[in-house]
């Protein structure tokens, strides 16, 4: 009886931990690309990690936010899977800014005001010294965790692809 109860508790814990498992793999994948973590904010169902893109000639930092939507209970996992929104925001920083940047900043923001960074779309947000490009997509956590090296490889490709697209959007703003 005690063993049964323990097994049930362990399975529930691991089901609830899938998003943390994925965040751990994201941190490892980014570290292998030479991007150390520089900020963590995390609670039970939402995690955001900021990475310093030390070796990237264009980007200054990247934020990755994972927000779990389904799959913490047995029923929701069976019906809907373990879905989460993965939001990635890349930051380009210029060391010099001037009043012309204010104009450019408002132009960028107006052009993007109705854009939603969902389904792979990219939204730009221009601040004085920084320009952010953000995209968001719904992912199935089970495609990446518990799949061994194949899952880790798939995750690395996903992150590389997203960061590459964000970099392409930002590169023209680099002074």
């Amino acid at each position, binding site marked *: 009886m005690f063993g049964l109860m*323990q097994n049930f508790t362990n399975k529930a814990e691991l089901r609830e931990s899938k998003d943390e498992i994925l*965040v751990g793999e994201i941190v490892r994948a980014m570290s292998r690309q030479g991007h*150390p973590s520089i900020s*963590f904010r995390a609670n039970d169902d939402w995690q955001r990690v900021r990475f310093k893109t030390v070796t990237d000639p264009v980007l200054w930092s990247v934020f990755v936010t994972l927000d779990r939507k389904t799959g913490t209970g047995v029923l929701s996992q069976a019906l809907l899977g373990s879905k989460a929104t993965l939001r990635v925001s890349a930051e380009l920083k210029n060391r010099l800014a001037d009043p012309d940047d204010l104009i450019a900043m408002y132009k960028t923001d107006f052009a993007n005001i109705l854009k939603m960074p969902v389904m792979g779309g990219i939204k730009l947000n221009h601040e004085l010294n920084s320009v952010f490009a953000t995209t968001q997509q719904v992912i199935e956590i089970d495609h990446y965790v518990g799949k061994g090296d194949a899952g880790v490889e798939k995750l690395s490709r996903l992150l590389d692809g997203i960061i590459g697209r964000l970099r392409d959007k930002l590169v023209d703003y680099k002074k």
Partner: protein
Amino acid sequence: MALPRMPGPDEDSLLVHSAEGQLGPLSRRTLKSHLDEGRVQPADHVWMKGMTEWEPIEAQPGLFDALDAPPAEEAKLPGESDDDHQDRIFTDLVKQSWDYLEDHEFAGHIDEVFLGAVITGTLDTGYSLIDLNSDGTHHYLRFQNMEDHSRVIVRATHLTGTLAVSKVLGQRASVVIGYGEKVGSIQKVMGAVRAEMKSSFLQNPDPGTITVDGDMASGYVYCQVDMYWNIDEYVASDYRVDTGKLSAHIGATTHALRKYLRGRFT
């Protein structure tokens, strides 16, 4: 080891260990005058940003070179116009300002670089991250090995988050490492719960004190130990991480806790 970048003659960038204790930050020119006055000896140790360890002053060739020359950024390059020269000085000043800001930011987030290194290193030893909580200063990580179901806990609190304090004390963190295993019988978990009650009398455990937690629901027993770690031993100012040292320290600590746990509860 050679200096990473020769600072300007009047740039306060050197720390020195002398008979008077730690001096600095000092400029190269001030250090030279201290040496001339005998206040500092050639065998005393010096450190500046980018050096991995303290080195004797006498082992630093070129530390006192060109003290009377204008700073390199102010010297005109061959063929450089006046306009370009002025622009370059201005650009360097702006860059220095960003470097200054980055020094402050790095002092504030070195614990999170450390945390990322702990995650990467622990995942590389076959564990998965199953719990993560952080408010930016207090961090809690829990890992599980999916093969043998053992767990590792790392709790870290950054104690020296400002540049001034970290320059004086080094980068320190209160670190609690825990190791847990499923012990299999209710009697053993109850034994751990009794030990946990005793542990609860230790409000602020001293370093090296092992405390025990028992979790009736999951059947896990955890042993954990409080320590203080110098996190700049693992993370350099250019964000490079000494993963070998970090993994060795976490490995040795979990090894000791595993022995204690198995000796007492299994």
